[in-house]
């Protein structure tokens, strides 16, 4: 057995023919694009023919683990779902934690790729004895959490298997459906659950125990000791309470300079409150979108937003939740036994994105309803961001007379009425009446409803925007509008760049210069190059199985380049790795070009760009110069500035044609 941290094997499942075939992957592929997202984009660029229907047999769904996953580095327990997205018609990927990522490698594979469509509902079972498709008739129709529970029970032998499953939303091909694992961790975006549902693949059950090797375990251990020591110490003093956060948000938002930040402070926030630390802080500094992106904290003032004080959320937390190999523990398991309509007694703590999608975005100050909705959507397997945005769209349509009581089946949709939203979501999950119109997200809904409703459909290229307002961070707006997976907040932003410290290691970056914040709002080549650098780094994180919150700590703490060299035995420089990141991103963009996507069509909704500008709040009067920023961003990648198509010389420089000529080959049976 080799001592590097990749398996060199994938499992190819032909759902139409009912076969499972291990294949070998050349080492050159891993050196060129790592594993995880990189392996996925390499494979799908080769395997999906241009023009393929995202819900048809030619689409391929990939489930990939990170290059570092299982090999010892902490904070590397993420897996990726990759496919052609039915939401955008282009490249789709979605990232998830839980316990599933290492299970892929413990079965002897770096990734599993699903081709074709099964004639009947099935699930994939991978055990030491081999891989096979099993009849899923008994599970079809069950919610995602119940499916997981029953499959774990059915296949638990010496160890608990890891299970990823879709819920009813995915079965009914809702384009905003995701894939669940570990009782409510979600690969939620890009419509990956709809693709899994279209293949009649209910679940994936993995039960393997092959250890993952590592080239330099001692080196990895010393990196872990250094990083985890910092994390262990990183705690706020006890007198810092959640009620303190809005004041600090206001103060920090008012400061005039952009400065390099210590990413370890992010870790402190995550350890204390999880992602909900941004709830009220973000309302005051302008990060939180309010009233379907048309309002500000003036519309959701302190008497209302106190309901989402993160202390109120952690009050329900029974214990902290960690994904595999996590040393931060941003998650939590909460007691929801007193919540009306709930199905379980314990549930994952709602994330910031979920809380805001169903509170500030709807002007709803009923926190219990957010817990209820979180559980409802987790069980249904529906993306909480997209569902919240779609409900906000429906409310605004109703308030403006575009939707009527007749359209909604008698449901009165008003700002702040959480009970009506819950009924609406139930209809969306079941695809009943108005729910059927809304179940595919805001872009499709606006097309179906017409009557000028598009002005309330806030999305980028079909993907609903997440709960971070680019008007305080214009780099985020460029990513929303020009990334191959548009409307994505986890790829890059000015804030992430300021914590990254990439300039310590990357030769083509100057040290971070403290500068007035207003400069961030001016289109510039410097800003574009920072965006490229941050995105390259995120591509490496996603190729490694790294966590977004570790990434936000920056490379002075989460020393990714060193981890990669230790685990692989390579001796690459930071610049070498950044070139790998550039290659992965260019392959994602190339996928879109091959599939006829016009990247400029992904430009985000005018409302999020500040057109018209807000009349109140921190972002009052701001309009982003997004159309001037996008060409500079494209050029910084070596893509055509106007169209976004990668230039031929860029493809050659990144050796992409030669890379795509490589083939999976030979006997791919897992090593013993």
């Amino acid at each position, binding site marked *: 057995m080799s001592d590097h941290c990749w398996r060199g094997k994938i499992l190819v499942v032909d759902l139409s023919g009912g076969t499972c075939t291990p294949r070998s992957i050349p080492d050159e592929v891993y050196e060129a694009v790592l594993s995880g997202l990189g392996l996925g984009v390499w494979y799908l660029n080769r395997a999906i023919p241009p023009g393929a229907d995202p819900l048809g047999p030619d689409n391929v769904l990939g489930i990939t683990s990170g290059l570092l996953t299982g090999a010892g580095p902490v904070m590397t327990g993420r897996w990726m779902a990759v496919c052609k997205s039915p939401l955008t018609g282009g490249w789709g990927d979605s990232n998830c934690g839980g316990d599933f990522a290492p299970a892929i490698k413990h079965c002897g594979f770096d990734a599993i790729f699903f081709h074709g469509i099964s004639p009947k509902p099935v699930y994939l079972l991978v055990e030491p004895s081999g891989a096979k498709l099993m009849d899923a008739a008994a599970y079809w129709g069950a919610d995602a959490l119940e499916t997981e529970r029953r499959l774990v029970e059915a296949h638990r032998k010496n160890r608990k298997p890891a299970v990823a499953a879709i819920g009813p939303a995915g079965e009914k091909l809702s384009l905003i459906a995701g894939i669940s694992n570990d009782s409510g961790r979600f690969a939620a975006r890009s419509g990956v659950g709809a693709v899994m549902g279209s293949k009649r693949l209910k679940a994936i059950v993995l039960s393997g125990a092959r250890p993952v090797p590592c080239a330099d375990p001692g080196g990895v251990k010393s990196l872990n000791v250094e990083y985890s020591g910092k994390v262990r110490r990183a705690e706020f003093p006890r007198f810092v309470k959640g009620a303190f956060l809005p004041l600090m948000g206001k103060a920090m938002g008012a400061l005039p300079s952009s400065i390099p930040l210590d990413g370890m402070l992010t870790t402190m926030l995550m350890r204390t409150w999880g992602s909900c630390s941004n709830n009220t802080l973000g309302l005051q500094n302008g990060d939180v979108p309010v009233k379907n992106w048309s309002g500000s904290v003036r519309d959701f003032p302190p008497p209302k937003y106190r309901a989402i004080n993160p202390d109120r959320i952690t009050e329900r937390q029974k214990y902290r939740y960690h994904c595999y190999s996590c040393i931060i523990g941003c998650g939590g398991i909460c007691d929801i036994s007193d919540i009306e309509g709930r199905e379980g007694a314990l549930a994952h703590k709602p994330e910031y994105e979920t809380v*805001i999608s169903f509170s500030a975005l709807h002007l709803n100050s009923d926190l219990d309803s957010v817990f209820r909705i979180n559980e409802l959507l987790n069980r249904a397997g529906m993306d909480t961001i997209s569902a919240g945005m779609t409900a906000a769209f429906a409310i605004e349509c109703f308030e403006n007379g575009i939707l009527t009581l007749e359209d909604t089946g008698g449901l009165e949709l008003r700002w702040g009425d959480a009970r009506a939203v819950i009924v609406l979501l139930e209809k969306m999950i079941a695809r009943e009446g108005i729910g059927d119109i809304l179940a595919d997200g805001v872009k499709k809904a606006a097309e179906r409803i017409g009557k000028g409703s598009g002005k309330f459909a806030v999305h980028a290229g079909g993907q609903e925007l997440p709960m*971070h307002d680019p008007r305080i961070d214009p780099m985020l707006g460029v990513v929303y509008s020009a990334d191959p997976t548009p409307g994505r907040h986890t790829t890059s932003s000015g804030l992430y760049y300021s914590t990254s410290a990439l300039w*310590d290691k990357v030769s083509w970056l100057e040290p971070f210069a403290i500068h007035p914040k207003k400069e961030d709002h001016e289109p510039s080549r410097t800003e574009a190059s920072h965006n490229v650098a941050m995105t390259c780094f995120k591509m490496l994180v996603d190729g490694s199985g790294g966590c977004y919150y570790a990434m936000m700590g920056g490379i002075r703490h989460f020393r990714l380049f060193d981890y990669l060299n230790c685990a692989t035995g390579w001796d690459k420089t930071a610049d070498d790795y950044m070139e790998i990141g550039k290659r992965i991103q260019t392959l994602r963009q190339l996928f879109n070009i091959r599939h006829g996507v016009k990247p400029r069509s992904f430009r985000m909704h005018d409302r999020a760009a500040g057109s018209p500008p807000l009349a109140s709040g921190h972002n009052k009067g701001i309009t982003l110069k997004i159309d001037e920023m996008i060409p500079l961003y494209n050029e910084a990648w070596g893509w055509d500035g106007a169209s976004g198509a990668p230039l031929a010389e860029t493809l050659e420089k990144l050796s992409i044609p030669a890379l795509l000529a490589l083939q999976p080959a030979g006997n791919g049976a897992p090593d013993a």
Partner: protein
Amino acid sequence: MKVRVYPPAYATKQPLDRDGFLELPENSTLGAVHDALGIRFPYRQVGLCFVNYRFARSSVRLTEGDTVSYLAFVSGG
């Protein structure tokens, strides 16, 4: 001795070198960092400051290579 400093936006940054390090006499305290960065009332009293990611008062003595971070909220989703 040198310590790495992540200054708050309201501080004077001139004493820092381009990599964010501050040169201080041996046995300096955190208060010396506040002084060098011009952090005075009321920020000195109400601002949160950490040495090696532990909350610290101005009297804490620093050693070579310490990291001094002033609270700047950074979050995600």
